[in-house]
């Protein structure tokens, strides 16, 4: 099993969720996050004083899937979230040792 964590542009979330759902990925965790990478923040002005908004608002999605399905999920994310401009985000993939569905106690792939 693999966990795919991806930082994306917030306005891409809805489209991405629909595409993942249609491709059979039945589960997604979303969090609102702030951070910076190559895309630095922007300047704001409040009552005459400029300040930098360093941490840009982003959305982080987390999907856990079977190892074989990982490539497909990545290609969906790339397909939808890539604009070619700085600030598109990143994808992180890591191995998952086990997964357990709390309601039934099932584990491994059955729990996904």
């Amino acid at each position, binding site marked *: 099993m693999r966990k795919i964590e991806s930082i994306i542009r917030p306005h891409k979330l809805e489209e991405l969720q629909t595409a993942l759902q249609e491709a059979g990925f039945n589960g997604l965790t979303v969090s609102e996050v702030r951070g910076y990478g190559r895309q630095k923040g922007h300047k*704001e*002005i*409040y*009552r*005459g*004083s400029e*300040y930098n908004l360093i941490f840009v608002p982003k959305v982080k999605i987390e999907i856990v899937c079977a190892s074989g399905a990982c490539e497909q999920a990545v290609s969906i994310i790339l397909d939808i979230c890539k604009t070619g401009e700085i600030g598109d985000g990143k994808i992180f993939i890591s191995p998952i040792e086990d997964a357990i569905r709390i309601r039934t106690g099932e584990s491994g792939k059955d729990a996904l």
Partner: protein
Amino acid sequence: METQLTQDITNNLFTINNLWMMLATALVFIMHLGFASLEAGLTQSKNTINILFKNSVIPAIGLLTYTIIGFNLMYPGESYAGAFFGFAGLGISASPDDLTSTYNIGYTYWTDFLFQGMFAATAATIVSGAVAERIKLSSFLIFATIFVGLVYPIVGMWKWGGGFLDTLGFYDFAGSSLVHSVGGWGALTGVIFLGPRAGKYVKGRIQPIPGHSIPLAVIGVFLLWLGWFGFNGGSVLSADPGLVSLVFVTTSLAASAGAIGAMSASWSFLKKPDLTMTLNGILAGLVGITAGADLMSPMESIIIGFIAGVIVVFAVIIFDKIKLDDPVGALSVHLVCGIFGTLAVGIWGDKAGLNQLWYQAVGVFAVAIFVAPFTAGLWFVLKRTMGIRVSEEEEWGGLDVGEHAMEAYPDFEKVS
């Protein structure tokens, strides 16, 4: 027959006048909600309960102290004409004559009391915004009680109570000096004794601390503008059709010109049209016209409002630069534009002239040399005895939890 008719006409006039004065009183009342909204909007969400608490209690303190001593300090009666201080005894009460046109053709004793009482708390509310986000609640409430109970009515007596500024020829129609500058001086000394908010100046650089709800600030400013129709319109002290309608026009035009003045100044000098500055500009125009709202032509009120709107932008920047941290711009709006509006009576309008300008300057000076040292002394004593500032730890965590053990938005995610 004829005397009966005259009597009826007088009674009708009295009823109409009194009705307008009570409506004006209610309009001034709503200004307290305006101040509460504006101050809450321009400060951080973690201090919202604290700001709203102060703004809820100040009108209450103002009305009660005004009942006990304030009204009789401010209007001690004709025997104190030309004086610096007078007192007509504790409490309020009306004889049957006080409730007819014998008292005044414009209003009854009760209307008179409540209209003036609604004004009283305004001066302390001005201080509340400037010292927000770091002041200890208990010390502030003691300050506010003494400020509205003593300082405000004593200064008010000098002009409106027939005191020495009135005899001199000083003019302040609805209180550019007597309300706004008085509050402004108290705010200035408070800001000096308190110091800036934690995090406002980092390594000598200004770190803006944006307000948490600009929509709330906008609501506040529009409520204040609405209330100003009563503040200035009621200061005619009757329903005189010509004067009240003129005052409505000058008040609105000055507020409009203030908005455009602040917009132009911030757009040209700060790169972007700043909404909070424009809101301050509306208030600056209103404060600026307050001293001479019944003396100005429409054009003159536009000039005064526009200048006040420009002044307020630069005043905010200068106060920021010299490290007088004022989260809502109260010093710029009420102190600076209060002084400007007072002097404007000597420059524009029916009373314009060098003599009048001199009287106005004397009034500005008299208010300054009484209120600034008095409030400085008060802050000093409070600082030495119970302290005026919350701990740094409490300031970072917010005064809502620190002073009240409450949160304004318990189900919101924390941003900072």
